[in-house]
Structure formats: C-alpha cells, structure tokens
C-alpha cells in the first residue's frame, strides 16, 4: 500500500506533493528522503545534521516520532510540516 501526502516548510512558502510513499516506511526514512528533495539545508556550520521534527496537521496537529510507521501515522492527503530545531548565535 502506498500513500500520497503534501509536505511544507515552516514559512508555508515551500510545498511539495509526495506520492507513492510505501506504508512500511518509518517517518525517519521519509524525512531523510524528502529533505534534500525539498531543497532544505541539512547541515549546520560544523557539518552536523540539522534535526527536523515532523508535525502532522490533522485533528489539531501532533508531532510524529521518527520511529512511527507511515501506514499507521498518516492517511492519504495528510499534510506534514518539517520544523527544524536550529540555532542562531556566535
């Protein structure tokens, strides 16, 4: 079984339609595959990966864990938002 969803960034100015996601994917696998395709920067100045949380925008919204299975957590036509945990400063 495969799912189709939409994904967007936190500014609401970058949207993609994501099709044919295998339902046995984990949210972590989906995230790792989608971020480069959404042209989102993935490394901090020290070369470390930037962590992105995924929020499901259904029923008031909830944050998804990387280990959740796509087929359990998502439904067709859901919308998810990729939210970076990111630092400014010296």
């Amino acid at each position, binding site marked *: 079984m495969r799912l189709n969803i939409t994904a967007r960034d936190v500014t609401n100015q970058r*949207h993609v339609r994501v099709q044919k996601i295998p339902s046995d994917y984990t949210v972590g696998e989906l995230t790792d595959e989608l971020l480069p395709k959404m*042209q989102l920067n993935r*490394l901090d100045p020290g070369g470390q990966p930037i962590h992105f949380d995924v929020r499901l925008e259904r029923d008031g919204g909830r944050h998804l864990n990387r280990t959740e299975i796509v087929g359990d957590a998502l439904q067709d036509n859901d919308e998810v938002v990729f939210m970076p945990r990111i630092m400014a*400063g010296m």
Partner: protein
Amino acid sequence: MIENPFTYALELFSGANRSLGQFATDPHWGSVVEWARFEAWRRAGDAARIGEAKVNIEPVADGTAGLPYATGFKVRLTHRRTTLGESVFSQTWFDQLARDASATRVAQGELKAGETFYFKLLAYPRPVDAPAKASTIEVVEIWQPIPLKMSDLQSLTAQATPVDDPHPDDVPVFIPHHVIEETATMTEKAGANETGSILIGHLRCDPGTRQIAVVVTAIIPAKHVEASRDSLTFTAQTWSDVDAALTLRQSDEIILGWAHSHPGKFWCNPQCSAERRRECAYMKPFFSAHDRTLHETVFSKPFHIALVVTNTDVGMIHSLYGWQRALIHPRGFHILNSNRPSTAVAAKTGDPTHEKTCPITAS
C-alpha cells in the same frame, strides 16, 4: 525538477601562487534556485510557468583555460523548451566556502591566519552512480505564487526614514517604528541572554511601477526557544506557536523573516576600559555562521530578511541582512512612522564576514 550534472571543487592558492590543494564542495543550492526564479518572475511575472519550469545548473567555463576551470555557474529555467530566464552567478558565490576551506589549511599550518589566499573554481561532470536504494517516492513541487498586495509605494516611502542607504537594486524593506522599539525592549529585558522573534507582514507591489516591497507589520516573539548568552535555539514548538499566532491574527500576513539579539555588552570583557569596549568587535553588528545557516535553512526566499539587534554600552543597534544574488548581505531599510523620538535606536549596517572572538576573553 532540478538538473545539476556537475560537481564543484575549489583549488586554493597562497598569495605566493603555491597550490594548497583542491576541496570538494557540497553547496546548498536552494537559495540559488529561489533567486533565479525570483529574477525570472520579476522580469516576466509569469508565476505559473516559472513554478513548473525545469531548473538546470551548469558551469560557466573559463574563457581561457576552459573546463574544468569555471568563472561561475548559470541557472536556466525552461518550460516546454522555452527559456524563461537565466541567472549567472560569479565564483564569488563560493567565497564563504573558500574561507571555510582555508581554515583547514590554517589548522594544518600551510596557511597563516589572516594570510591572503585566492581560489579557482573547478567543475567536473557528476559521476553517474547506480542509486544506493531505488526510491519509489515521487516528489512534485507545488509552486507557491508570491502573495502580493497592491499598494502605492511612493506614499509608503514618504512616511519612512531610510537607514543605511538602501540600495536601488534591493527590494525595499519597510519596518514600522514600533517593531524597532519592541525588538529593542525584548533585547533589554533578555539581559545577558539572546532573544528572538519572527517578522511578519506583506509583500506589496506598486500597481504603477510594479516594484515590490517587503512591508513588516508586526513581530511574533519566539516562544519555547532555548536561549543562552551566546545562542538561541528555535524548537519545533516555536514554529508551531508562530503558525498558531498567524492563524489567529487573520490578516493574510506571511512570514517575512526573523529577528534576534546579540547581547554584545555582556559578551565584551567587563575588565576592558570604556574606550576599548567601544572598539570591541562584540559591540558591532555581525551575522555569524550559525545565523547564516539558520537564514539559509528556514528563510531562503529572496525577500526574506533578518534583523539583528546588538545591545551595546551606548544603546541598541539595529542592522538588517537579506539576500542579494543568493548570498546573504547587510542591507539598508526604511523605518516607517519614525517621527517619534527614540534615544535607544541607532541603526547601522553589519559586517557580513564578521566572526568575532575577543582575544582578551578567549585567553
């Protein structure tokens, strides 16, 4: 769809023309693609076709040496065999990556700190590898038309005070005086810690001249951040909160950028003399490597801006940064309704390459 069939490397040379080796680069191309689309859209205004256009990135060969030596690269947008736009970027786009690469040579003792170096840009065809894991996922970008509100920009300009000589090629930015004051107050209240907020408002287009302007209307203070003396981390909860606030306001506002503070007077060594503190690098505006990464990651649209409030011994200094040809630069802006007197605000342009370490504090 983005086609990028080349990889890029930098060859560094000392001032005495000694090669310091080649460095592979893995640049983040998102800002370049956004800038090329923005340029094409400003020229032609055909948002629908630009959104569907194929993007091709390829090197501009050095006219004398030829490939792999390149003088830059170009980004071409095509839609059903029609070229919608082409943006050329010189090798200066790689300057920051070259500076980063030079740091490793400094660490290895092959280059002295502060020593002049230069670099050449090289482009190689990307090797065609079998994908490690065949992906079945299909990703199609849904182009978001730039939401414009029509507005007479001349009347806006008449109510505004220019700060730091806004450049005519930059999209003008208007920030209301109350936003300047609110960010200064937040910075003051945060004391020795950093603080931040999200800038919201509208993109306005003059119906006569078709000029576009960024008009900030308000800030949303960033909650659920992790703030310390020298860092500010935006968490998932921060973004959820901003989303909710925008929905509640029901004013069709969009996210235009972000603001954060540098508590410079708390970074500066308190044992230094007043005169030395005045000259302290921490007291001057700058945009750090972490600030750049945050801006590139979250605020990559060509109209996105970053306001930095530097808390100094002599008051708050507001400086603005934004995109110019897919690079982040200090830039000028306009303060709206600034006829009210304010003693706390003095605005200056920051130094884009300023990565500060106080030699006294560090020792």
